[in-house]
């Protein structure tokens, strides 16, 4: 239990230190040391509790209760301050509702409710600990170098880096609070901190666009926050408890009783996990410096959303309305966002759409809620976190060195930044091609969906996966191109950035190679602890066969691919009218030299945002509406019956 306290409080202390010590050198040292300590502590935490089926600590603290109230007030005050400053009356209204609602709840309803089991550790928390501790603090280290370049590019602006780093560490602390707190009021406090931290991080540059996108984020997530609060009200009034475990037990035994709070929590989880129609906030979050995107996409924020949904998985498995709601929204989000990613040329937007799509798949799996589905959802979370952070970090570094985040400009990155390009290629492969991690998880998903006869979802998975192949393969192809020998521009990449990349790559390869081990010691204990049984959807021999192929690919990519060959060098074919083969210049029909350029296919007429976004958004709005009507009607019907 001391470790839990350490993991939550230590980043907070560091955040405080970072605000006080504002010199670059001191800050760099603090961030390096603190990140390494958090990594070490997270690994130690996992080592001490490996294989656990859930330990609940008798822990109740008035201090933390008061701290939660204080956090709610501070969060509300911050949002109100900014909404007044930038004159956003909707945000102001939402913040006021939330603040008043929270205070009424804390003092009027929850004050007498005692939650004895305040903290807990189970295997899902351990997996999340590793993700937050290793990936999250890896990103903090990466930020050291990245933000130095970033500041150099924005010389004329105020140096807000101390606040930036402090927010990153507060974010980690809040995430630890979310995964270890069984008292839902404490959990809610952590939940709100992540909302407001990402609000501040997205608005970091204070450009008009950044501020607009930050407010979009806060509106959507406050809707989710209010839904969370509504669930708390219902729990306190109906069941007189704020114990998360109690809620799950009540839910699995009598799903009809929890339809309303479950729908509310689903909505809260979906807003955080950026499911359609709330996906626009995550796209808007791209204006922030890249480490922010990496943090939001991989280890924090959106993962808090799916963590909540996975936790509720056992309830979905036995409930009807909320389960269908979550499955359909998740499935549609996966399908539409995979299509939309095809039409994007901006690397960060492709990553964003792919994140949303994968979160959709995780959401859908959580909504199915069977043992195999939760197994699949957890592996999707693991691989997505690692691969996506690797990709964001690579794109961030590439952006600083080639001056663009446009995929078309990454032509021949393989020659210009040989090491970085191959890291990026590995990240992309993990995301979309078997037998790397994500596809193994998708395989398990398919097994689950067949077992539960989810035909609609199977079709969405089939078409969405095909689209996934298209948009990743064409990006991968761009990177692989080799023409001539341009200068290597990666010599100036910061050490901290390489270190973070190395952490991600090691994690990625280990995770891909050790799926059976992770399954045995971390995933299956969790599934067994909540559902009483656990099945590994894929047999060991197939997983080890995959491992062999993964290792073969890694060796090929990093060992063989850039070796010089003995082959005689030839020029590319330019219809016999070439002027300069190295730069692909040929003589056109007017006898003028012209460069042969090839752009990837973006198929805007088929998969453009203008065409698909409105359809997906409207369908998902309707689904949410139906879900809430269903929740209210069924709850009211139940009240009358009783």
């Amino acid at each position, binding site marked *: 239990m001391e470790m839990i306290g350490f993991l939550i409080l230590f980043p907070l202390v560091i955040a405080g230190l970072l605000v006080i010590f504002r010199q670059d050198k001191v800050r760099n040292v603090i961030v390096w040391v603190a990140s390494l300590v958090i990594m070490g502590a997270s690994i130690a935490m996992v080592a001490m509790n490996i294989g656990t089926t859930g330990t609940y600590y008798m822990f109740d603290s008035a201090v933390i209760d008061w701290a939660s109230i204080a956090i709610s007030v501070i969060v509300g005050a911050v949002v109100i301050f900014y909404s007044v400053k930038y004159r956003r009356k909707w945000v102001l209204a939402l913040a006021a509702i939330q603040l008043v609602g929270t205070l009424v709840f804390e003092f009027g309803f929850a004050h007498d409710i005692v939650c004895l089991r305040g903290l807990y550790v189970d295997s899902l928390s351990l997996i999340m600990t590793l993700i937050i501790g290793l990936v999250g603090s890896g990103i903090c280290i990466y930020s050291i170098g990245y933000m130095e370049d970033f500041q150099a590019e924005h010389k004329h602006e105020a140096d807000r880096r101390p606040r930036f780093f402090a927010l990153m560490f507060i974010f980690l602390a809040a995430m630890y609070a979310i995964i270890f707190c069984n008292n839902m009021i404490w959990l809610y406090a952590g939940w709100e901190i992540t909302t407001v931290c990402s609000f501040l991080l997205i608005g970091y540059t204070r450009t008009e666009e950044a501020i607009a996108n930050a407010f979009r984020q806060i509106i959507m997530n406050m809707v989710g926050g209010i839904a969370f609060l509504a669930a708390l009200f219902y729990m306190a009034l109906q069941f007189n408890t704020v114990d998360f475990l109690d809620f799950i037990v009540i839910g699995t035994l009598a799903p009809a009783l929890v339809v309303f709070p479950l729908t509310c929590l689903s909505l809260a989880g979906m807003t955080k996990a950026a499911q359609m129609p709330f996906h626009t906030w995550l796209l808007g979050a791209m204006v922030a410096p890249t480490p922010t995107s990496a943090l939001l996409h991989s280890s924090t924020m959106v993962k808090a959303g799916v963590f909540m949904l996975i936790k509720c998985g056992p309830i979905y498995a036995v409930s009807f309305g909320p389960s269908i709601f979550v499955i359909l929204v998740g499935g549609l989000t996966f399908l539409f966002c995979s299509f939309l990613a095809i039409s994007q040329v901006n690397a960060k937007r492709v990553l964003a759409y792919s994140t949303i799509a994968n979160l959709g798949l995780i959401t859908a799996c959580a909504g199915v809620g069977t043992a195999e589905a939760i197994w699949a959802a957890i592996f999707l979370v693991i691989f997505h976190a690692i691969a996506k952070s690797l990709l964001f970090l690579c794109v961030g570094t590439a952006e600083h060195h080639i001056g663009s985040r446009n995929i078309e400009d990454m032509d021949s990155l393989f020659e210009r930044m040989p090491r970085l390009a191959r890291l990026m290629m590995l990240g992309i492969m993990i995301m979309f091609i078997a037998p790397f991690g994500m596809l193994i998880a998708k395989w398990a998903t398919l097994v689950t969906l067949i077992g539960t006869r989810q035909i609609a979802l199977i079709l969405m998975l*089939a078409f969405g996966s095909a689209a996934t*192949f*298209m948009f990743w393969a064409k990006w991968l192809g761009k990177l692989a191109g080799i023409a001539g020998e341009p200068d290597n521009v990666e010599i100036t990449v910061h050490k901290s950035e390489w270190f973070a990349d190395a952490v991600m790559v090691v994690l990625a390869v280990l995770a891909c190679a050790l799926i059976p081990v992770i399954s045995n010691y971390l995933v299956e204990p969790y599934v067994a602890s909540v559902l009483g049984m656990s099945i590994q959807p894929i047999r060991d021999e197939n997983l080890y066969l995959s491992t062999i192929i993964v290792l073969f690919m890694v060796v090929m990519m990093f060992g063989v691919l850039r070796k010089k*060959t003995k*082959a005689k*060098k030839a020029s590319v*074919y330019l219809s016999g009218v070439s002027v300069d083969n190295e730069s692909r210049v040929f003589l056109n029909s007017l006898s003028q030299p012209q460069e042969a350029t090839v752009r990837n296919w973006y198929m805007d007429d088929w998969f453009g945002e203008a065409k698909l976004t409105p359809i997906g958004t409207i369908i998902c709005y309707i689904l949410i509406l139906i879900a809430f009507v269903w929740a209210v009607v069924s709850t009211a019907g139940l009240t009358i019956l009783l």
Partner: protein
Amino acid sequence: METLISILITLGASVIFAIVGTVAGCLLSGLDRIISARMQGRVGPPLLQPLYDVRKLIAKDNVAVNGTIGTYVVCALVFTFIAGGIFFSGGNFLLCVFVITLAELMFVMAAYASRSPFSEAGAHRETLQIMAYEPMVLLLAVGLFMATGSFDLSVLPFLDQPILFSLWGIFLGMLYILTIKLRKSPFDLSYSHHAHQELVKGVTTEMSGKTLAQIEVMHWCENILYMGWVVMFFIWGNPISIAIAIVAFILIYLFEIWIDNNFARVKWQLVLKSTWIITLVLGGINITVLAFL
């Protein structure tokens, strides 16, 4: 221990497939050329002409635009062998699909790596083709699971009836995409045997000598593997099924040659639209019926 043995069996089967698949694929390709020629009123080359072609390619000088293309092609070839090994040793069908998709990806990467305008155009089209047929292949895996209770192909020879009876829609859908998979006109957008409708040589524009020979061998093995995917619909626990499967093999392949010789290459829009509609209608109806009836 069992795990280890079964992995070794799969790897062994891959080696055997590398030999048997190559030989069978070579003969099939030779027959294909003779029959095509007869359809066009020509005599055609000798049966072993494909072998002579490949032998000649191997003897050529080692010339390349850059070194990575060869590496990608070797990977593609190895993965094709493994996919065949998994399939014909009765392994997991989904794993077979995944590994052959990896091989396809390596093939696409090889085309991209040259940065040649023509082979990049081929790479784009190849990617599009993969996107077009992938849903149907996944539905085949789903259907197989629903019909037999697992992705394992080893159960096929013990079934009471061929999976064709329950997977009729998926079978027809597979026949449709088989034309793309076998790289037959009208769906040979990326890499065609018909010189008159090809943009230089699509994906393989910058490949020569040994590398091109490897592509050719890969293509032979792929053909055998994909024919296996459709012929498996006719296998069940009765010795006569072997004879039926052989007849089905011959008829289906003749049908593909006939299509190849009678249709001109179509635009990519039609490929994508028609395959997806067919997948959605035939595949969708088929698995819905399986799930709920």
